[in-house]
């Protein structure tokens, strides 16, 4: 039930999109992936990203799936966020990417 409600709530919000370039030296590897998913899990919103503006979309809360993308340095991450705290979530993940995950 909980999941159904969550997705219904998410659907009630139009998705927000934005993109950012990966600036840290080694792309979205282990440490940045963990940081991204930890950040994403702090929000109720559904947070996805892709290497192209039209997908395929990856759940930013799953470290296994984030790592499978193997996004290299210089890649553009397109984010798609939907949920009640979507605006804050998008700002947070973008800040993390801009900041090179604190290891640029």
């Amino acid at each position, binding site marked *: 039930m909980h999941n159904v409600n969550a997705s219904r709530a998410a659907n009630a919000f139009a998705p927000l999109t934005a993109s950012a370039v990966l600036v840290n030296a*080694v792309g979205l590897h282990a440490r940045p992936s963990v940081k991204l998913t930890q950040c994403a899990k702090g929000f109720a919103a559904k947070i996805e990203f892709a290497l192209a503006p039209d997908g395929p979309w990856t759940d930013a809360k799953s470290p296994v799936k984030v*790592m499978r993308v*193997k996004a290299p340095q210089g890649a553009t991450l397109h984010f798609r966020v939907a949920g009640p705290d979507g605006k804050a979530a998008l700002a947070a993940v973008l800040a993390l990417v801009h900041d090179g995950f604190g290891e640029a």
Partner: protein
Amino acid sequence: MAEIHLIGRAASPGLAIGPVTMLTAAVARRTASDDPAQEAAALRAAIEGARAEIAEQIKTIQGDVADILEFQVAMLEDDALAVEAYEVISVGITADHAWRLALDVEIEGYRAAEDEYFRARAADIVDIRDRVLAHLSGVDTVARITGGSIVAADDITPSAFLAADWSHGGAVALAGGSPSSHVAMLARARGAPMVVGLGPLSWNGQPPALALVDGDAGTVIFDPEPETRRQFEQRMAAANAAQAAVEAGHVAPAYTADGRQIAVLLNVTAPEDLAGLDPAICDGIGLVRTEFLFEASRGLPDEETQYAIYRRILEWAEGRPVTIRTLDAGGDKPIAGLTVDGESNPFLGLRGIRLSLVRPEIFRVQLRALARAAVHGVLKVMLPMIAIPSELDRAGAMLDEEVAALRAKGIACARPSLGIMIEVPAAALCAEDFGAAFYSIGSNDLTQYTMAAARDIGAVADLNDAGHPAVLALIARTVEAARKRGVEVSLCGDAAADIRLTTALLATGLTSLSVAPVTVARLKAAIAKVGS
């Protein structure tokens, strides 16, 4: 038996010699159930067991190693990792087989990556796979490595590496692997030499007994001939002696050839500069820049934040004197919301102490934090860009007021000695007129103001010469003023680290130089040659 030379890639520096331990995958047996529900439950329990085991290990370690293990925890906590395994379990495959199938696909995905960093993650997934398999079978499959041995394997997992004691030598020689792997990071952190990419390790008959690992060149010699071994041992002895000499020179106080003791102090840009440093390498800290505290992204730091950082630095110094410079914003160091934009010549504008005096509400916070930190060591506070005595006097009055206010509230504090940076020629020429507790010569700005040439303008960079007689004369004059007034003087600009200038600087009478930590050993070596 002839010795075997293999060439790979250096992954962690150093030389090692030792008996060979071959790592082979341990085979664990378990009795599977016919019931898919029981198998799924067994896998769930094994994943949770592996996760809990790593989480327990993390508590005992820090830094890079903890980051590596946290990555494994994050992967194990993610249901996406085992989705495929549960699917095949539901159609009757055993838990261990299902887990192996699913993880091997994942591992293959990493091995096929174009990017070396992602390829190197394959070893982490192998580690995750084997940890969970160990929990499924209920036996410890992590191979135990005897301390001091040369581990030869196709690859090695972080768990296997961490399970060994590397404090008494030993090294790693891998057929596969990568310098970007987490294990390579661990090896560098633990000082264990490591060579990767040696290619297939196959022997005719007996596996090798002894190996020489050269983690600098990226080579390994198995079963060396006696002469090869003797030469290698000579190289190891020479490398150890050189290392010991560098470390000893680092820690000993600096003397010139004619016997003058010179204090060597550290310049610190951020507290992280001190991480892992032995305070015994220096006679104190000659300059802590505080601009890092005011970086735009963090906003203006409050008193508690500043106090905590100043205190940490004083405690690191273990009673050695620490000179902290108050905020030196402006010039080439703009700070949003604080410095003035659009000055026609920022280097001659509102910067350093001038800015602090017009923004007392910010300056007083720093003075309070410094006075509170002063009870934790020997603190000296230095004011930047002082040109005339009244600037020092006004700052000193503010410091007195803040110390009195803290005492009135019963907050522990002490009044640090207040000195000035000598970087404006006017201050150097009239140094005697200042009631400063000490002088610290900032040779970068003193040079550019004396020569009227900026360091960052290439066309005039030649003129920006700290060794010019005019600059040296101003330094000598400051040293003389300090002698007359009976106060200390040191030099903390880049000139202190320029060993071509060491003789000239010491000729002015200076007996104290402050440099970045990486320069300490080189400067001490240069000082030892002065006067010979």
